[in-house]
């Protein structure tokens, strides 16, 4: 369990012409379930295939075709629910959401309106060390994705590709607990992180595998607290839904724009219409979606091709038992067990692969802070330069731990360690052997240093005299010794010996 305590962030306040306004934001995130095959057909979910090649007759809604559920998709959604500390409904059911669109071949989407698989949960959204927002999850339901319509290939026609049709989605619906654009982005980031830890969604926003509908409303300060007390939405403003956002940056910009738009309307004496809007990143504005279905009437009803989905508690328990350690727990453990700052722990646990790498380093190097510094600053910095991520790292955790151990044992200097890291990074090899073979080890043998100091003193009587008058010039001798030893001498030992020999 998380034992890091946190304070609640202040809501974003926007000053209108007349009043201050607060933002209230709820999110509906569509996360593509990581699975081989689609929710109700055996076609592949692979991205980027030839158009209409990952399509079965079921996906194309050929006459007489019927859905059969992919159990793994359900397992993934249950896993996600457990990861969000949510209740799992042992009985859920699928409903049809009816509307016409060329990339919706059935003329309906199979979804879960009345009885979702997952009920209430929560996400702790970290803002900065010690500050986090608890966002309540209302529900998660499982549904089919639609296909893709391409509008720019021909001036008069739209082209339809059904590869994506029927891929399983989890719709993760939050309560309106998010209080600003930055929190919204942080919410997505945290949710994405948890999904990736769980392995239930790859979180690839660019491919649309994680996208959000953002509900934005504004209220006067104090109103939100009234809502929280009563759960009565009438304390809040009318919300607008900004559809289909797949960039954290745009999400923030869209919220900011939308809030200001609503403030302007309300302060001008108008009323915000509850509607669906689209964000245009080129113009940085939201606009009303020409209600393509005047008064959306989806005519939901239970899908008669499927029976209710009954799952067993024992199965849920098995999934729960196999859950990985999640970001909050991992972060707390890193702080506690390795003495990391919350900031460093945050960075290291952002991606589960990074955290795993770090843990391998730290268990071998046995120094939390040093390991964190080296992983975050040297390794991540170097990888970034090459545009690589940790899975491509040419330096293994054992190699990095080897370098850190050499530093810890004072065998190499910090500067030398950086050179050694670069060699290991580009050429590979055992750090200790390289340090040895290339003479990178620090000389801590005082006899050898003394000899070198004696030689330089003997060769430079004039400098000795000057130094005796001005002890600051001792540094020159230190430099000479370091030069003579090829930089391998332990600088502290050199300093001490030079001072003693010069009688300073």
């Amino acid at each position, binding site marked *: 369990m998380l034992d890091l305590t946190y304070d609640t962030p202040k809501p974003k306040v926007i000053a209108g012409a007349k009043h201050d306004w607060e933002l209230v934001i709820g999110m509906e995130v569509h996360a593509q379930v990581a699975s081989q095959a689609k929710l109700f057909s055996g076609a592949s979910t692979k991205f980027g295939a030839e158009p209409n090649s990952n399509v079965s007759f079921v996906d*194309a809604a050929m*006459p007489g075709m019927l859905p*059969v559920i992919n159990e793994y998709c359900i397992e993934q959604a249950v896993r996600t629910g457990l990861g969000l500390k949510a209740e799992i409904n042992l009985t859920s059911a699928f409903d049809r959401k009816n509307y016409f669109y060329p990339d919706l071949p059935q003329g309906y989407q199979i979804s879960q309106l009345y009885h979702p698989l997952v009920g209430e949960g929560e996400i702790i959204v970290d803002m900065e060390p010690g500050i986090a927002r608890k966002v309540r999850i209302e529900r998660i339901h499982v549904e089919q994705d639609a296909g893709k319509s391409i509008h720019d290939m021909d001036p008069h026609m739209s082209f339809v590709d059904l590869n994506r049709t029927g891929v399983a989605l989890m719709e993760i619906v939050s309560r309106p607990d998010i209080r600003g654009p930055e929190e919204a982005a942080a919410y997505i980031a945290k949710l994405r992180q948890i999904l990736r830890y769980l392995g239930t969604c790859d979180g690839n926003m660019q491919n649309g595998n994680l996208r959000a509908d953002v509900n934005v409303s504004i209220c006067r300060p104090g109103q939100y607290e009234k809502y929280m007390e009563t759960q009565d939405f009438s304390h809040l403003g009318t919300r607008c839904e900004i559809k289909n956002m797949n960039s954290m940056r745009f999400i923030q910009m869209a919220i900011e724009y939308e809030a200001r738009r609503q403030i302007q309307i309300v302060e001008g004496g108008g009323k915000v219409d509850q509607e669906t809007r689209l964000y245009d990143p080129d113009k940085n504005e939201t606009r009303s979606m020409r209600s393509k279905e005047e008064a959306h009437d989806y*005519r939901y*009803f239970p899908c008669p*091709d499927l029976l209710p989905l009954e799952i067993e508690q024992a199965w849920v328990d098995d999934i729960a038992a196999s859950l990985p350690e999640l970001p909050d727990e991992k972060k707390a453990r890193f702080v506690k067990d390795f003495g990391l700052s919350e900031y460093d722990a945050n960075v290291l646990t952002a991606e589960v692969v990074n955290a795993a790498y770090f843990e391998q380093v730290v268990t071998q190097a046995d120094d939390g802070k040093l390991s964190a510094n080296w992983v975050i600053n040297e390794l991540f910095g170097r990888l970034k330069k090459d545009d690589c991520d940790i899975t491509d790292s040419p330096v293994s955790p054992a190699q990095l731990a080897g370098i850190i151990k050499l530093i810890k044992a004072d065998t190499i200097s910090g500067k030398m360690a950086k050179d050694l890291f670069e060699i290991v990074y580009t050429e590979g090899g055992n750090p200790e052997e390289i340090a040895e073979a290339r003479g990178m080890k620090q000389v801590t043998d005082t006899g050898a240093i003394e000899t070198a100091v004696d030689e330089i003193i003997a060769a430079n009587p004039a400098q000795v005299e000057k130094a005796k008058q001005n002890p600051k010039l001792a540094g020159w001798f230190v430099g000479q010794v370091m030069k003579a030893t090829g930089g391998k001498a332990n600088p502290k030992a050199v300093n001490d010996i030079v001072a003693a020999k010069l009688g300073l």
Partner: protein
Amino acid sequence: MMSDLTKLKISEARDALRKGDVTSVELTEACLDAIAGAKALNAFVHDTPEIAREMAKAADARIKAGDAPSLCGIPLGIKDLFCTKGVASQAASNILGGFKPEYESTVTTQMFNDGAVMLGKLNMDEFAMGSSNETSAYGNAVNPWRRGNDDAALTPGGSSGGSAAAVAADLCLGATGTDTGGSIRQPAAFTGITGIKPTYGRCSRWGIIAFASSLDQAGPMTKDVRDAAIMLQSMCGHDPKDSTSADLVVPDFEAMLTGDIRGKTIGIPKEYHMDGMPEEIEALWAEGRKMLQDAGAKIVDISLPHTKYALPAYYVIAPAEASSNLARYDGVRYGHRAKLGQGDGITEMYEKTRAEGFGPEVQRRIMIGTYVLSAGFYDAYYNRARKVRTLIKKDFEDVFAAGVDAILTPATPSAAFGLGEMKDADPVKMYLNDVFTVTVNLAGLPGIAIPTGLDKQGLPLGLQLIGRPWEEGDLLNTAYALEQSAGFVSKPAKWW
């Protein structure tokens, strides 16, 4: 000789094939000839003689090799609602004009795997919506039966009207039907043949063009009960591609036909005595009751109190499901697409395509279904209908729990009526045809119609037996006993 071959029952043909008295090729050719000579019935709407001959040859080889299931070499007709690979399958609708599926329905796959021969596709009401085969895009199918010497064309019933006409006129040895509210049993009764709708979930719905998913079931339409048992055997079974298909063992139905129903309890539901029902049907029903009693069954009067509400519930549930099931016919991926005018966009394409492609009855039901599901009406109509459905099912559960093995009712409220006779009636009048059959679909039960007599005008009349869920074998045996007693052997006089 050749023309007599088509009069064979499946069981007789099977035995003759096995003995080597006849070949499947001979049987098939005889049927193809009969079909060619019966265009006036408009029963077969897509003939597949090449496929039939190929299949017959293969069946003959198989029979010769000694590996022959009962259906091997038997020429059958297939309702147009079944998707048959590479063969037009358009649910008698213009909206599926030109559609040739790249797949084969599970039910036909199973029958073809058993060696059955497909003669062609059979006429039906468009999307199985109708009780007279008058909503078909192919035009009416015609009943081979006529009223005495009157040559007015009669309906073979619907929606499986083509199947019924083809079997009654000996164009094929048996045919597939589907039944959503009575579409196997009502046409069977109108044409003097046998038709069984099995328990919901017995036959896979995969590859059968959907009308109302929670009600649709396939079943055989045959010349007698034994043939129904043989054909049903092949059609049934669990299909992992249909989530509502039952994973249950299918018993040997034919072996269960002993004719011994001593000790069975047959219920007679008082609510099936309808006002204005013809005297002849009341009499037929009473005779049936007596026959079963004479055969050793115990007859009890029972009550199914919610019977009256079955039709209205059906006319909420079936159109609601249909409105959604038929949304896929949008002109995008297959079938008809309307020619568009200047400036027409996607919405115009949908609206014109669907207005041109669907006939009036289908349009009407789609719109009713759309209305009852629309915002504000869902609870008042759809949910209420589902609750009534629960009550209707419970009516049956109660009588079965009280020891009733099967229920005897009339199959239809009248004999076959004339084509066009109901043209000006309001739609509800036509819906009343299903009044005795629709309860069975709502409760998911097996029901069978068998011919037991003729009316004064010489038209066949049928009775319906309703069985316990999954007990088709027992139901068939009761029907077999009734069939033995009734001894119905009449055939329509050939006029076509």
